[in-house]
């Protein structure tokens, strides 16, 4: 079983095997966060590596006030945001003023579903959501974080996290219903 405190202590002593355990434990979390944030999939692995390098370098600053997973998710989120800013990919996904008026592609879902399965179709729909919606829905469905923790990771108030989650779900359900 993964003993968080023991692993942290060993990593801080320079034990790379313990760090491997830490990577194994949280790679899914980091991978999902980065995948949902970064459009260019070729950059995904590099950014995931950047996240774990930051975790390795800054682990001594982890103060155990939050869960390690929350701390790592926050690093992953901020790394992805900074990558997007650096690569200017984010312009299309910045918060629009008419956030509630967002609708998906005009392409009829039935047409799309004839060539893609539902999961792939849903991923495409998620990719069209605003950045914060994508992040909130990804973190929530990892079944790892509470609303408060998601707020801590994304820097949003708890109420906004809920609103984003509900709105994102509603938008996604609408597209499935349209099918």
């Amino acid at each position, binding site marked *: 079983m993964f003993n968080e405190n023991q692993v942290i202590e060993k990593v801080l002593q320079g034990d790379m095997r313990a760090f491997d355990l830490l*990577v194994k434990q949280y790679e899914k979390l980091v991978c*999902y966060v980065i995948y949902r944030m970064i459009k260019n999939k070729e950059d995904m*692995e590099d950014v995931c*590596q950047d996240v*774990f390098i930051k975790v390795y370098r800054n682990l001594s600053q982890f103060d155990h006030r939050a869960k390690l997973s929350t701390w790592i998710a926050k690093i992953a989120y901020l790394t992805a945001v900074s990558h997007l800013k650096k690569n200017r990919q984010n312009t299309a996904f910045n918060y629009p003023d008419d956030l509630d008026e967002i609708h998906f592609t005009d392409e009829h879902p039935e047409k799309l579903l004839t060539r893609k399965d539902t999961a792939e179709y*849903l991923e495409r729909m998620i990719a069209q959501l605003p950045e914060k919606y994508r992040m909130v829905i990804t973190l929530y*469905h990892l079944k790892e974080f509470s609303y408060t923790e998601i707020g801590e990771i994304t820097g949003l108030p708890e109420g906004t996290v809920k609103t984003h989650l509900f709105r994102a779900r509603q938008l996604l*359900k609408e597209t*499935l219903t349209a099918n």
Partner: protein
Amino acid sequence: MSKISQDEIQQWLEKQPHAPGIEPGAENEADLKNYQLLFDLLDEGPPAELSYSFTANLHRRIQAATSRRIGLKWYGIAAVLTIIGFSLAYCSLLFYSANAASGFAEVLNKYKWVLLFVSACFLIVQFLESYLNDRQKQQLQ
């Protein structure tokens, strides 16, 4: 027929025992069915996978960053030791002969730009070497 609210959906998702009853009806049932499908797909997560060499590449990058930091530390120590060495040499000379000490200081003053240039060249060569090594490693990955 009433539309299901997001709060009701959330409580239904969390299977709370005192969740408000969702009115029966074809529209609501279809909605719940769609939500169930959506939640199942969202719980599965995206089809994201890291390569088999991810951990090995991560180790390599951490090692490269660590050795670069150690290198910088050593250059700093070497610079401080050099300054201390010159100061000690000056003080020793001052102890034996003030003329020799001022001569030493003059020589240092005369060649200060040469010394700085040599040090700067050394640091640039070291930096370029590590930069090219990193690039080569990244290309090999």
